[in-house]
């Protein structure tokens, strides 16, 4: 009985969010535009970087950048769901959820499901475009499934991070606070060239940035030479669990604010 109440609340929240998302082009466009733009700009405009001495990625520069774009779309897919949460609180619709839901933690689960649904659509589209532009894939079916599973963890972590911020601040003005840390974390990773080709301060920062590990593991999967996968999944899982606690605490704060 409790499990079915949890499920029904989560599905109701997810359905509403997804319905709003897919029927409002202004919500769909940013999530689509930025990954596509990054893909076009980096894979298209920077492909000559593969000629940099020491750049050795067998699957090619398009596949190299595809992994970044996939992870970026996953992370931001989660963040944009945080915007939706903030809008719900600002319009006071979220109070209806809090009043009506017998299991309020299911509200967070529902938003996470919605983030996953939104990202799945984007991931499908960017994968199709990447393949259509001739991206080479060195990995097996298992490798690719692992890559998407890793991106899924990033999506969950990003969504829960943004949910925690949104529930604490309960205003769309909190958007930059949700976006900027995620943006900075993504770009302080080996975005353009592998980690060992970075020099100076960026190499030092990227070396300790957990996103770097996830990105490099993802690239090894698409290249068909998996490495660091266990650690990447462990890190992704830890981020998801940590941000789940962050989001649930944010929910408690939203409840006590009334």
């Amino acid at each position, binding site marked *: 009985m409790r499990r079915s109440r949890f499920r029904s609340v989560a599905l109701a929240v997810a359905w509403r969010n997804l319905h709003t998302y897919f029927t409002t082009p202004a919500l769909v466009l940013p999530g689509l535009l930025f990954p596509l*733009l990054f893909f076009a700009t980096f894979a298209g405009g920077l492909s000559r970087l593969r000629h940099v001495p020491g750049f050795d990625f067998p699957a090619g520069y398009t596949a190299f950048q595809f992994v970044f774009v996939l992870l970026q779309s996953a992370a931001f897919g989660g963040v944009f769901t945080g915007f939706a949460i903030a809008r719900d609180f600002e319009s006071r619709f979220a109070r209806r959820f809090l009043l009506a839901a017998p299991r309020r933690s299911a509200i967070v689960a529902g938003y996470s499901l919605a983030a996953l649904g939104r990202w799945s659509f984007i991931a499908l589209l960017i994968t199709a475009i990447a393949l259509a532009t001739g991206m080479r894939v060195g990995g097996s079916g298992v490798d690719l499934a692992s890559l998407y599973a890793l991106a899924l963890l990033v999506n969950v972590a990003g969504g829960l991070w943004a949910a925690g911020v949104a529930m604490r601040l309960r205003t769309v003005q909190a958007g930059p606070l949700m976006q900027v840390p995620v943006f900075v974390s993504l770009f302080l990773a080996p975005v353009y060239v592998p980690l060992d080709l970075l020099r100076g301060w960026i190499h030092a920062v990227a070396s300790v940035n957990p996103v770097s590990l996830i990105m490099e593991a993802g690239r090894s999967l698409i290249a068909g030479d998996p490495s660091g996968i266990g650690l990447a999944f462990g890190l992704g899982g830890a981020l998801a669990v940590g941000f789940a606690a962050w989001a649930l605490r944010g929910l408690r704060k939203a409840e006590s604010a009334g």
Partner: protein
Amino acid sequence: MSSGLAVQVGHLARRSVVRTLRQPASVVPSLFFPLMLLAVNSGGLASATRIRGFPSDSFLDFALAFTFMQGALFATSNAGTDLARDIQTGFLNRLALTPLRGAALLAGQLGGVIALGLVQAVVYLAVGLIAGARIEAGPAGAAVIVALSVLIGLAFGSIGVVMALRTGSGEAVQGLFPLLFALLFLSSMNLPRNLIEIGWFRTAATVNPVSYLIEAIRSLVVEGWNGQALALGFGIALAIAAAGLLVADRSLRGRLART
């Protein structure tokens, strides 16, 4: 300029400048984001300098120009959003009841854009120099960079003003951001056009006017005095500004219709 027009422009420009500088949400992102991207890109793309034919030994020098273009993007948003707010709150309607001339409104409104553009340009230049960038064209080149940057901000600001006058909506102005962002990215921001391998991207960057704006500023930093690059950059910026102001003037007539 007649004294009456000058007084009108002065009042509105002062209002625009004070309003812009009093909004941290307008000023801080337009300073922070471009500099953050500059730091990230100059570190992450440093190895690009090892590509044969790359015009500089320092990616910081190469990437500095893009910072100014990003600032211009924020100018579009700020100018348009402020004017849209004036329209939505009825301030423009109240102005229409006064002897205010349309030209004064446009000039005054863009005063805030020019002030922010100046602050941005000086900050970007200062940070770039502190980080180790070298301007081949020297102090005179730095002054030209500031001037060109302000002109580009004015040009893009006029686009934001047009959007605000046509739609009267801040959200519609914000809707311009992704389009201009796309223009920015589909340019020679990361590599010189002759080093872009992919044909369609190189073509897109070649027909994109933003590429020439970036290249004009970049030429002062990396090469020194390149007449062709500067002529193209200034020419395109002036053309965009002139077109923007012309359309803005026409759009304003409808908004300021007196009954």
